[in-house]
């Protein structure tokens, strides 16, 4: 089955180049990439997931240091039953207020499932997510 991910850049962030590089990388790995592009509100990621329910993950890039603010609605969305697939966050998360490990912990506290420091880790992380999902389905007898 064709593997599919939803990709985009956080709402306040207009950096297009890294976003496209990641999209290219994933396509090289054989993924179908639904790329929502720059300045994408979290609700748009949720809508894209509803339109593409087979997505293995939502991958969000953030290069401008405002990741926490841009993802602040994640708990509310999840509480409303949306955006329930794994969320992977990558980019320059260590700039500004996120320099500390505390910053990373705050992001995890929002419900971010995986935090990438290096974009090259992304395919591996997606593989781990699929394995975990498969194991979950096996355990559930699906």
């Amino acid at each position: 089955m064709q593997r599919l991910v939803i990709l985009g850049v956080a709402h306040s962030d207009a950096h297009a180049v890294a976003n496209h590089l990641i999209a290219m990388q994933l396509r090289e790995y054989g993924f179908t990439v639904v790329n929502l592009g720059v300045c994408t509100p979290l609700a748009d990621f949720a809508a894209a997931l509803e339109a593409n329910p087979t997505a293995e993950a939502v991958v969000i890039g953030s290069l401008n240091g405002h990741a926490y603010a841009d993802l602040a609605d994640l708990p509310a969305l999840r509480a409303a039953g949306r955006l329930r697939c794994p969320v992977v966050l990558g980019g320059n998360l260590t700039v500004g207020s996120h320099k500390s490990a505390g910053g990373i912990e705050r992001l995890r506290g929002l419900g971010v499932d995986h935090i990438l420091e290096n974009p090259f880790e992304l395919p591996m992380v997606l593989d781990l997510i699929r394995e975990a999902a498969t194991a979950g389905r096996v355990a559930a007898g699906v």
Partner: protein
Amino acid sequence: MSETVDWAGMRIDRSTAADLPQWRETVDALRTSTRPRAADALRAAHRTGRPIAQPRCGVGGHEEMLELLRRLEPAGPGMLTVTIDSYTRLKQFDRAAQALREAPADLNGYPLTVHGWRRGRQLLDAVGVPLEVRHGSPDARDLFAVALAAGFTSFEGGGIGYNVPYCKDVPFATSMEAWRQVDAVCGALADDGVIVDRELFGTLTAVLVPPSISLACTLLEAIAAVREGVRCLSIAYPQGGEVHQDVAALRSIRALAARYLPPHVAVHPVLHEFMGVFPRGRGTADALILYGGLVARLGGADKIINKTNQEAYGIPDADANALGIRTALMGTSELLDFVALDEARIDEEMSWLQREVAELVDPVLQDGDVPAGVAGAFAAGRLDVPFSASVHARSLVVPARDATGAIRYRRTGELPFSAAVRQRNDRLTDTGAGSPDRFIQAVTADINYFLTSEGVTS
């Protein structure tokens, strides 16, 4: 959305229109003006064979803008710029006005619509060379109306080039229609004897844009503009970095114009000095700026938009910008006329490049409606731009530098290229089997091309 009114055939904000003089006054002022005109400066450059240089420059405050223009003029630009701020580009005139009141230094350009056409006229009167408005607005109709009232004779932008790199979600139909109206005003003015130079921003996303994509997009914008009556076009191409390819691309602008545009239209090739990731070392940065000037002259450009050696660090100060003008002009000196290139290699590049452009453009032109054709082609990926900010370009194209540094297609996406074109690009970008990770490293290295060489040259 504010209420719009008709102004010379363009829909503009009522509040913008309220402050403007009558259309006939504007036309008469343009026709009787003794100020230098952009079209004349470009024609003179073409006649002498020496491109003029033009900096980008714009600051928020009016006095500061006057001062900036006056400080740049002694460096010898053939044209100067009023670069517009981001708020005005997005028609957020109220936010631009607020920023101008509260923190004008924070504006990244001159909010011309807020300052108004009378102040714009003061800018024009401050220096002895023509001024152009450069911005990046998908819908610049209000800005254009104010610029005309002020007396500007050169205006940059187009429905593709001022959409793809600047906006996430403006449909091509919207931007093409906004620019159609601008071009139609230029056509009406031309009938009245006023020639406005319309410059097309071929740089697009500025990241490894294959030359045939740049030329295809500006050619489509040019064809659309000419159909509305535009008679003077500056067609800009971004320096890629490989001299034969860049010279071939600049020379192809004239060749393509001869093929696709009527002969009464003046077409001026413009070189944007390297727009990608700029070297930080001053020596390499200066050399790259010089190199651009030399390429412009060799390619027969009529104008260079110069970079500065502070490019890697943000908006340059006036001194760096003046030096950038001088450095670019150095490359156009007749003292370097001994520099000769491999003309056979350039001819071959031109041949393939024009073939690629034709394969991109001809299908779009088939139905006759250029704006609709452009929108449809982008939606299908038959036109595409790598690294697009707009979701309306699919960015399935993957560029690569070949062994010489020329920009090729590593992946052609949905572009309707012939087998011959695809095979040539495959051959030139075939770097052997590589992992997807290696692939992404290679693209990154190609983007950072002029950083790589920095260790050696600065």
